[in-house]
């Protein structure tokens, strides 16, 4: 959790920036022939600046972006970056600020005032401190990854030998293949939704939050993501075991690591139900067995066995008296669990 003092400080940069920073239109100056695109660009620019003064950053951003489409200018790019920054879109703001500085340099340094280039560099430094740096470890790495509904983008200014990837700068779209099993990710502080997909499997959605400036490891061991196993039956007192471990009477809802499990459901007088279940990471599997009563074959009739018992008992007694059987010891009592431990 960033401290409230951190929030205020971060806000300071923005407010100071916005109070000082939104560049107003000394430039671009109208083209001599009053090109309609330039006129519209200027109008959009004015609307954007107006909205920025009233802290309506979304509206300002839209207007500046429209202006930029009609006429490229480093000042407009710079203003787009400030709006993105005010809206908490730091990775986008960083990228846009860099574009503004590059565009200015390409124009011989004439499009941005010195204070604006100085401010741009200062904001870049501040944004670097705000971004969370996440060391992502993927296992396995053959997943497609999207963050907040956008694929990642490689930070062009990072070292090609150890590239840094950035979230939030690409247009919305499906996830793309993760760059590697281990990579660095720069991401805005706050809530994010990671969607990891693998062919043939349901996507896995994860919520993660990051603090400003946080440097953290993010292990995403997909195979180790728990799955959920639900066993429901209308039969009362149906005992569920998973890999021979007693998990209680149905209904049960369990979280288990992904893998294969042998599930049995038993109830006295009913045919046991057994099923091997494969749990995928993040998946939910529900079993609803219907136990069948054991058929009462002749050999299931009590009187059959009672009669057989009577015969055997009689025989047994006779044999005993004839042969003096060895003494017996009472069987250990396993209690309600039916579990008796021999301490050897």
């Amino acid at each position, binding site marked *: 959790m960033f401290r*409230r003092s951190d929030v205020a400080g971060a806000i300071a940069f923005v*407010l100071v920036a916005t109070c000082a920073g939104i560049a107003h239109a000394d430039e671009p100056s109208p083209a001599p022939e009053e090109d309609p695109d330039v006129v519209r660009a200027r109008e959009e620019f004015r609307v954007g600046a107006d909205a920025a003064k009233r802290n309506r950053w979304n509206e300002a951003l839209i207007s500046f972006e429209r202006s930029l489409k009609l006429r490229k200018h480093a000042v407009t790019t710079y203003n787009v970056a400030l709006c993105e920054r005010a809206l*908490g879109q730091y990775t986008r703001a960083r990228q846009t600020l860099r574009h503004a500085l590059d565009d200015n340099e390409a124009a011989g340094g004439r499009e941005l005032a010195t204070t604006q280039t100085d401010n741009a560099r200062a904001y870049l430094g501040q944004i670097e401190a705000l971004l969370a740096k996440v060391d992502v470890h993927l296992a396995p790495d053959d997943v497609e990854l999207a963050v907040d509904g956008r694929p990642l983008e490689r930070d062009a200014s990072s070292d090609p030998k150890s590239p840094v990837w950035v979230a939030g700068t690409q247009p919305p779209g499906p996830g793309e293949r993760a760059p590697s099993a281990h990579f660095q990710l720069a991401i805005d502080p706050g809530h994010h939704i990671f969607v990891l997909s693998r062919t043939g499997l349901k996507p896995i959605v994860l919520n993660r939050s990051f603090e400003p400036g946080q440097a953290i490891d993010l292990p995403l061991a997909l195979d180790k993501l728990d799955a959920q196993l639900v066993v429901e039956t209308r039969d009362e007192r149906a005992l569920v075991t998973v890999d021979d471990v007693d998990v*209680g009477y149905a209904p049960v809802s369990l979280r288990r690591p992904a893998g294969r499990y042998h599930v049995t459901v038993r109830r006295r007088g009913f045919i046991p139900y057994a099923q091997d279940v494969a749990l995928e990471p993040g998946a939910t599997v529900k079993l609803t067995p219907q136990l069948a009563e054991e058929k009462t074959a002749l050999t299931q009739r009590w009187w059959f066995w009672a009669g057989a018992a009577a015969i055997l008992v009689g025989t047994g007694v006779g044999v005993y008296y004839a042969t003096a059987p060895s003494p*017996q010891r009472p069987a250990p009592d396993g209690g309600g669990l039916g579990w008796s*431990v021999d301490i050897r």
Partner: protein
Amino acid sequence: MVRRHPLNAVLLAAAAASSVGACRDTELPPYGEAVLEIDTDVLVPALVDRLRIDIFDQEGRWMETRDVARPDPRDWPVSFGVYSRDETSPTRVLVRVRAYLEGFVRDYRGERPEPPLVGPPKVAGDLATMCRDAPVLPMNGVTTLRRGKDPVTKTPTCSAPATTGSVAARITITDEADYRVGVVAAEPQRGTLRVVPLAWSIALRRQCDDESSEIACSAPNGTLDAHLLPGDYALVTGGAARLQPADLTLRVARAEDWDKPPASTSPPPALSPIELPDAALTPRSEPEPGVAIDRLVVAELDPGVRARLHVDLHGACFGQPADLAVEGGRASPAKARTCVSRERELQPVVPEPPRRDPPSGAHATATFGATQPCEGTWPRDGRACIPGGAYVFGGSEFRAFEESSSWPPRVARMTRFLLDVEEVSVGRWRSAVARGFVSSDPVTPRANEGPLGTKVPPTEEADEARLLCTWSTSPQGREHLPVNCISWYSARAFCNFSGGDLPTEAQWEYAASAAGRPSKTAYPWGDSEIAPRCDEATWGRSNDSIVGGGACYRPEAFAPSPTASPGVVDVTPVTGVRGLAGNVNEWLLDSAEPFTSECWRATGVTDPACLVGDAPLRSIRGGSWLGIPDALRPLFRSRQDPGKTLDLTAGFRCAYPGPR
């Protein structure tokens, strides 16, 4: 377990018939055996729904383990047997039973004995005491000490006189060389994105309690470099900061070694490995101690005797792990200790006497944490009655965030208490002042004699910050808004004046997520997968969207909400408390320490709290009108400098003893 089949019944009948003559003539006695019947006085499945059983022989070797689910109260008591085939000598068996909640487990890495409690950090009240208790600061090591608010010494060689408390440490120099001493960490920290240490200075003395022996002093917030001859010295801190407690971490090293990492002074916790005979079968997890009742029992197995033992797992023993006294990979039954029925109390393990009366087979009445209902009609007089009960305090939701983490969890039994229905408002504060209340901290609440500002100030210390304070010495039409810009000290004084105190973290979380409900909820009003809308609770009204903080910004609503209507859903069911999520963060009584700290380890099951007199940080929860949606969740912990006077988001409500 033997599978039943009619044929087996026939054979058994035959065997039984055959044995009739044997019983008459030469029946063998049973093996020495004990059947253990395990029951509990806590609510099943609300507080426990699994039982873990570990069996050790009399030499302490771990023999067997089993973990069973028993979520149905009808499945209790749980019984099983142990026996010995030795027909000549009695033997003993050590049984460990742990009742706990499904899902609350941790990796098993061996037995982790609890380190002994050493007590809260001492704050020196005078120079002699400070110097007498000054610890040795090892070379290239670090030590964290707590200073109080009040000065105990002058630091004559320092440029700024000491106007706050001090800490002292002793160092021994063995070689003549250049050395550096400094404060490498300070809590609380102040500042913005950059950590700006608290104002302090560090002085070097020949003798700790002799101010005239001071040799040198650092620059404010700087390190002290000195060429030192062999001998003993004392380091004493000064400082001209705002009066408040603070934790300072001191370090000393040779100047050339300063950039190397300091030696760690805390040994890693000992893990006593212990495994089953087949190590591969050793369980990889064990119950999380805070939510487990852990009991050791010794059963005597006498040849020919079948005993029945009844073992009660008492809720008072939640969070008190048994001590197996592991040596050489085995438990030591003779030295082992266990909690039987009293909080935080371990006793030697003695053989359990056999039960004489026949077992009832019925589960004991759940008395631990039984609901203490609120009689009569509530709320009344602005106070809600929070019924007593037990719940799991803490959880895993924010485990990854160190400061906000409420892990590990623990079971807490809460006594019934009263809680303000609403956050304390400006009007209520004014009414108390009119009745003679005087704030202990004269500067808070900070007053704003004009209209509320329209934007978040550049820093919290800026003059514009006061424009977002709701209190005013004369009414400005904000009587219904919560008081903010208030220190912990003032908030607490108000509650004391009103006959109560600030709520503890356990009380607050209980009221916000569990009281009167069958299970904990994600928000005070109930469970929801997504953050509330902007009209449902008061949050995110910052006019700068930092990390979602600006999601609810509207220029016409740039302020906290009235305490009576903080949001259309922000009303806690059953109790009727309003505004626990959002609006203003709420000061709490506890010192802000991690749940793994000694302070929390030392507290018991009933009404747990971490209360330290001079705490540099106090807990605060609930989220605020400027804040992020995460902070609206009851499990989200925050902390703040108790002396802070311009926190635009800090307010409070009071708690009171429950009706008798």
